[in-house]
């Protein structure tokens, strides 16, 4: 019984087929699982392990290394406020304090209604619009407390759905088809290289 939906199971196989080694699809598959479930469920990690040929512990061990992969449930909207050097020079500390007050949670926590998780993030590479805020990894450019509040109100009312998809959705563009260059070619070339190396040795 697959944890992935039928559509996502197909996408998972397509993702794996893009790489010479199945394990390379591990991160993309974790993103796919988060797109489906909102977070990385143990069942999803077990299935990813099976799909790419490693143990579930290896998937968890890899996933926990990365900030964007969540092995515990988080809110529908992940609000990331950068406090790195460019942003701290321009009011990030104050904006983060405001965000804690407005959402009623500390950094790292999720609001009781399950809507928002607040995160203090490292540099998000949008430093000419400080302090930088992302929601579900979309740059929202709410640089003042007032703009931040307006955004939160809008999200609570179900707005901005087009601009900010649910947490976990990174790419809404589907790759049309797999690889065009015959995938067996690399294997053939490797085999040929191995045999010619053998001949030289012999």
């Amino acid at each position, binding site marked *: 019984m697959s944890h992935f939906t039928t559509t996502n199971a197909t996408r998972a196989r397509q993702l794996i087929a893009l790489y010479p080694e199945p394990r390379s699809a591990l991160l993309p598959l974790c993103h796919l699982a988060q797109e489906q479930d909102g977070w990385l469920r143990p069942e999803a990690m077990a299935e990813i392990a099976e799909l790419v040929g490693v143990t579930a512990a290896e998937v968890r061990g890899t996933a926990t290394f990365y900030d964007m992969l969540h092995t515990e449930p988080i809110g529908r909207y992940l609000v990331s406020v950068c406090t790195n*050097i460019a942003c701290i020079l321009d009011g990030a500390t104050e904006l983060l304090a405001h965000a804690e007050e407005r959402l009623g949670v500390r950094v790292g926590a999720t609001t009781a209604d399950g809507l928002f998780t607040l995160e203090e993030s490292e540099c998000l590479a949008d430093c000419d619009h400080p302090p930088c805020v992302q929601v579900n990894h979309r740059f929202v450019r709410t640089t003042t407390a007032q703009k931040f509040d307006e955004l939160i109100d809008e999200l609570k009312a179900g707005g901005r759905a087009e601009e900010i998809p649910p947490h976990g959705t990174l790419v809404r563009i589907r790759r049309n088809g797999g690889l065009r260059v015959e995938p067996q070619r690399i294997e053939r*070339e490797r085999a040929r290289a191995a045999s010619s190396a053998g001949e030289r040795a012999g």
Partner: protein
Amino acid sequence: MAVTDAPRIVTARLDHADSHTLERYLATGGYDGLRKALGMTPAAVVAEVDAASLLGRGGAGFPAGRKWSMLKKDPVTYLVVNGDESEPATFKDHLLIERDPHQILEGVIISAYALQVTQAFIYLRGEFALGLERMEEALNDAYRHGAVGEDIFGSGFSLDIVVHPGAGAYICGEETALLESLEGKRGFPRIKPPFFPAVIGLYGQPTVVNNVETMANIPWIVTNGGAAFAALGEGRSTGTRLFALAGHVRNPGPYEVEMVKTTFRDLIYAPSLGGGVREDRELKAFVPGGVSAPWFGPKQLDLPLGQDEVGAAGSMLGSGSVVVMDETTCAVRASWRITKFFFRESCGQCTPCREGSGWLERIMYRIEHGGGREEDLDLLMDVCDNISPGVNWPPQQTTICVLGPSIPPSIAAAISMFRDEFLVHIKDGGCPFD
């Protein structure tokens, strides 16, 4: 826009709102460089890039042509493009990925042809959701256009490109950590030697790893010739470069300027560029090339934006980010925040970096927040010395990768430039800027 009248090479298309689309790309000479390259021999394309003397735009500034020539001969080789931009205050790749993905793709395809590689990967930072969408869309369009895939433009050359999302880890910008991550593992840097990517890279095969801005320069170089590129700039720093200007300036933003012919003063003060320090305040210090670089002060403003020039002055152009701090900035607080960043992002493999970053962060925190002790400055320098012996520039290394030796420079610079400020924090038991 620029101080000199050098052409804009990587930002030429960005005045158009639809600069990311195939239609706009084709209407502005897009994929002409690729057609030209496919009519040349791969060796001739390499020769043009060599003639351009293009320095890698990721941070280390290694000549791209030489990197290519080091690729070990093997039936299976890979090209991997580094779009994991995470060095604090660097936002130039972000711009190029979102606003001109085809230019990067064209650079990748030309480079793959020059290297005779049939499989390329573009590793993009996971937090760039829009960038990932734009790049995937551009890739789909490029396949449809016949610029990628089987028998590109009827040339007989075939190439597949895969866009790979990262998942949030600064260390994956380090090329061997990036390869580990691309193999589906934790981003642990590999030890060099033996794991030089050009010899043992992705899946153990020889691999070239280039930055996205490096790739974005390739179409122009092929179209206009390496000599035209080398005619810009001076010495080893040829061409233009895209600088990310942030902090206390009137107009923070990405600016493409001619190398060496432009100075830090131009970048920060020219009305068409940074426009000067905000509210006409005094400049206190600036970060010249990402937070791994030692800081500069007003005395270094007239240094040219050139790799060797900045290197000789004791710092680096690094990732191309310049952060301006005005007189209201607390040097302790700024360097504490940078240290906290390295503490969070250390991968944990090497003891000096894993433990040292945490010790430094805690000492810096207590100084900034009123718990500083008299012996703390010596203690900071001692810990720095254990991570990077001598705390000199260029730094010595005790760790597998350069994240470790990137930790001390901002602390050492802050202490040497603003020692009194540290002492006031310690003596008064708090931050005088609060």
